[in-house]
Structure formats: C-alpha cells, structure tokens
C-alpha cells in the first residue's frame, strides 16, 4: 500500500509539470486552434538559458527569473514576427511552421549548448537531504510541485480576476467582438504566447533535475502534457491541468505495476488514442451552450 501511495505522490509531482505544459498548449490552442508542437523544445531552450546563467555564476533564483523573462520575450517575438502572418494560413501551413519551430529550437539548443546530457541543479536539494513526507517524495519533487502549483494558481487568478486576463480570454473566444470593445487583439495574442513560453520555461527548469538536460529533454514530457491536455479537453484550461496531474499518476502507477518503466511512454500515447476515439472533447470538455 505504501508503494502505491509513493507512486501516486510522485505521479502528482511530475503531473504538476505536465499540467503547466498542458496549460501552455491549451493557451496557444485556444487562440490559434493549433497545437504548438514546439512548446517542448522552446521550454528546453529556456532551460538551457537558465543552465548557462547558473554556470555563469548567477544564483539559482535569479537565473530562474531571467530565463522565464527571456522566454516570455521569445514567445512575444514568435507571435509578432511569425504567427501574425499566419493568422489566415491553411491548417497544414500552420502545422508546418510549428514543426519547423520545433526543429529550429532543438537544433539551436544543440548547436549552442551541445548534445551531451547535463545535470541540472535543484534549489531544494544540496545532495544530502533525506526524502520528505515520510520518504514518499524527494525534496526536489516536493519543491517543484509547490512551485508549479503556485504558478498555476497565479495564472488562474490572473485570468479570473484581472481585466487584462479577461481581455485575453475574450480574444480567445471572439476576436471580432473583442475589437469592438476596443481590445488590441494582436497584443493580447502576443501576451498569450509570452505567457505560454514562460509557463513552458518553468516546467522545463523544474523537471530538468529529474530527467537531466539535453536538447531532446522535453520531447517525452510534451507527449505526456499533450495526453493530459487532450484528456482534460484541449480547449479547457482547468481540464487540461487536471488531465496533466491525472497523466502523471497514471504514468507512475502504470510504470510501476502494469507495463514497467520502459513502456511508460506507451501509456501516454495510448491515452491520447483512447481519448480521441471515445471522448474527443476530453473528459472535462465542454460543449458551448447557446440559445439563439
């Protein structure tokens, strides 16, 4: 029984990271109606920025904040320079661009920082701590979950309670009507990309100490996040977050008791297929109710 509890808790810990990446995917999906396949590689690149800042002697949290800020700007720039031109593009052109971005970020990471696997420091461990919560979680797992949870709550509060967040949601639902109340739609879209990139950066930096840093670090993570987003409903932010946690737990339990660690990724792929077949709107997917 304690083994199961251990797996569930550790699943929730990695799930929190899937959840924040899933939320980034949903944020982009809601405004572009495409899945940003490059979200993971962008996060990897951000993690490399944090890594090189730490190597250059910056303290961990300064490097963390700088990397998140730089990622935010990269997100803004991608929207302003690239996505704005693609607003009316064919769906395949958009997919092509997203895959292109994936390859570009992957290659740039490898080219600048190299392909050798690097250890990434954790701010919550100095090497000799005992596991916390009675041995169920490592100090890093606990710290990373708390950071991602705090970030998810902050994002929720931003969208729920601020006028800017409301304007961004309005743009996602109805750009035309948003213009009619005076919202500058392009700026909101750019802000969305910035936020998504920043969320990805946080996810990358938090998972790097567990999976180690290399240019392909996020490839698998993105699949889990994508499974989580689909499970919860790709156009439902809260659902995607819940889906991310669920996938974390399913992965941990499945890996430990069903298929073994080598086949864990299969679980993510299987759940993607299963959701698409049986519940294409996701478990929490909403049909918009409207009367006319």
């Amino acid at each position, binding site marked *: 029984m304690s083994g199961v509890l251990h797996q569930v808790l550790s699943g929730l810990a990695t799930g929190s990271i899937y959840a924040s990446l899933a939320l980034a995917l949903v944020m982009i999906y809601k405004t572009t109606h495409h899945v940003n396949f490059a979200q993971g590689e962008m996060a990897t690149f951000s993690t490399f920025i944090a890594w090189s800042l730490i190597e250059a002697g910056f303290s961990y949290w300064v490097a963390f904040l700088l990397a998140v800020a730089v990622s935010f700007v990269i997100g803004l720039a991608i929207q302003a320079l690239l996505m704005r031109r693609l607003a009316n593009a064919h769906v395949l052109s958009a997919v092509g661009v997203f895959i292109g971005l994936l390859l570009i970020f992957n290659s740039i990471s490898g080219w600048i920082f190299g392909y050798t696997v690097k250890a990434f420091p954790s701010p919550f461990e100095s090497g000799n701590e005992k596991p916390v919560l009675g041995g169920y979680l490592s100090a890093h797992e606990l710290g990373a979950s708390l950071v991602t949870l705090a970030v998810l709550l902050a994002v929720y509060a931003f969208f729920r309670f601020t006028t800017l967040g409301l304007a961004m949601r*309005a743009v996602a639902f*109805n750009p*035309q009507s948003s213009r*009619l109340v005076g919202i500058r*739609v392009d700026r909101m879209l750019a802000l969305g990309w910035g936020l998504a990139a920043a969320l990805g950066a946080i996810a990358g930096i938090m998972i790097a100490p567990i999976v180690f840093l290399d240019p392909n670090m996020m490839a698998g993570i993105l699949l889990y996040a994508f499974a989580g987003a689909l499970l919860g409903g790709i156009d439902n932010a809260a659902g995607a977050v819940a889906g991310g946690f669920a996938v974390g737990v399913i992965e941990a339990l499945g890996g430990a008791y069903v298929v073994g660690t080598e086949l864990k990724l299969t679980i993510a792929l299987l759940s993607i297929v299963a959701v698409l077949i049986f519940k294409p709107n996701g478990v929490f997917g909403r049909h918009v*109710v409207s009367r006319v």
Partner: protein
Amino acid sequence: MLTSAAEPMPPLLEARGLKAAYGPSTVLHGIDFAIDEGEVCCLLGANGAGKTTTLRAICGMVRTEGEIRFCGERIDGRATEDIVRRRIAHVPDGRGTFMELTVEENLRLGAYLRPTAEIPAALAEVYEYFPKLRQRLRQQAGTLSGGEQQMLAIARALLLKPRLLLLDEPSFGLAPIVVEEVFALLERIKQDQRLSIFLVEQNANLALALSDRAYLLETGRVVMEGTASELAKNEAIRRAYLGF
C-alpha cells in the same frame, strides 16, 4: 454637397463615395451619408442591400474605398479597435456578445476602455436601463434569451460611453413583444442621453418611429433620403417596406 468653410460644425459622421466589396463582389457602389450630433438616423433596405456592410465599413471591418470622417477626421482604413477607441460603439448582427463568458464579464469588457474609477457609476447606469441583467450577472451570456442577449449587447455598447452608436437589426430574431421592449428602451436612451444613433433595421415602421432622418439603400446605392416623417409618408416606401 460639399462642406463649406463657413459651416461651423462638420457632421459627426460623414461618408463620401463609400465603396465596399467582399472579394470580387461589390456590395456598396459609392454611397454618401452623414449623421449629425444628437441625431438618430436609420438605414432601411431589403435583405442584401448592403445595410450591414455599411455599418461594418464604418468600423473598419471590411475593406473600403472612399472617405469616412468622424468629427472631421478620416477614419477609413484604420483598425477596428482604433475606430472603437474614438467611441463609436457597434452592436453587430449576431449581437457580438461573448457567449461563453458571464453577463458580468461581458459588461466589464464593454467598459474596457473606461477608467476604473468611472466603471461602478457606468454599470449602475446600464442596470437602470436593463434591470434584468443585474439579476443574471453570474449567468453565461449564451444561456440568456434572445431578447436578454440583445439587451446585453446594447448595454455592452453603452458602457463604451459612445459618441455614436451603430445598431445592426436590434429586432432580429426577437418576438414582437420583445422587439417593442427593445425599441422602447432605445427611445428612452435617445431621450435621456441625446445619443447619436445609426440604426440598420428591416422593421421600417419601428425604425422610422425612432429616427429623425432616414436613408433608403437599394443594391448598394442610396436611392432616397429625408426626414423620417417624409419617408414614412412616401408612397413607394410604404408599399415596399411598411406593408400598407
């Protein structure tokens, strides 16, 4: 008719030689119209005459040729959000409310350009016109009845504190009794605020009753203009649009 230098006030809104097209099909073939400050003006015409396109052209939602001036300044070719920021509020066909958001969120978005300090008073003002909305603040806008949605759309537009209100078929899809309610409210708002309104409407009876002046649009051309009472008496209009 050219505005001479001696005339002190330019019209609030003025269009000259306004053309609009969707791809290869031209909808407006160079129309002229003007709306004065404090005036309610309606644009009548059959389906497909170009009424909705005229409003969309004013708001920069369709590509146009020709001149549109607001308070004497050119606004044609500008982005919709820039035109809205000059306080032209547009209630589009289909109402343009945010179905997925709550009534309260829709209203907050309507007041998006207002300074925070003005918002409570502005909300109190629209609740006075639309007391039903106050009871439904937490409800998703898409679940309101058609009439309530139209009220929400008008409330949203009023929250901009518009200098000109563009209304696209406020009667569309509503039961006759609800239509009367909507127009009674518009009459009240007109009296209270001396608000300039440019109204597009199929229901010519109601539109002419509310308006000071009217234009008649046929296949993208203005074929008649005059005071609302003149047009209401006109034999051709009566037969074609008023149905008696």
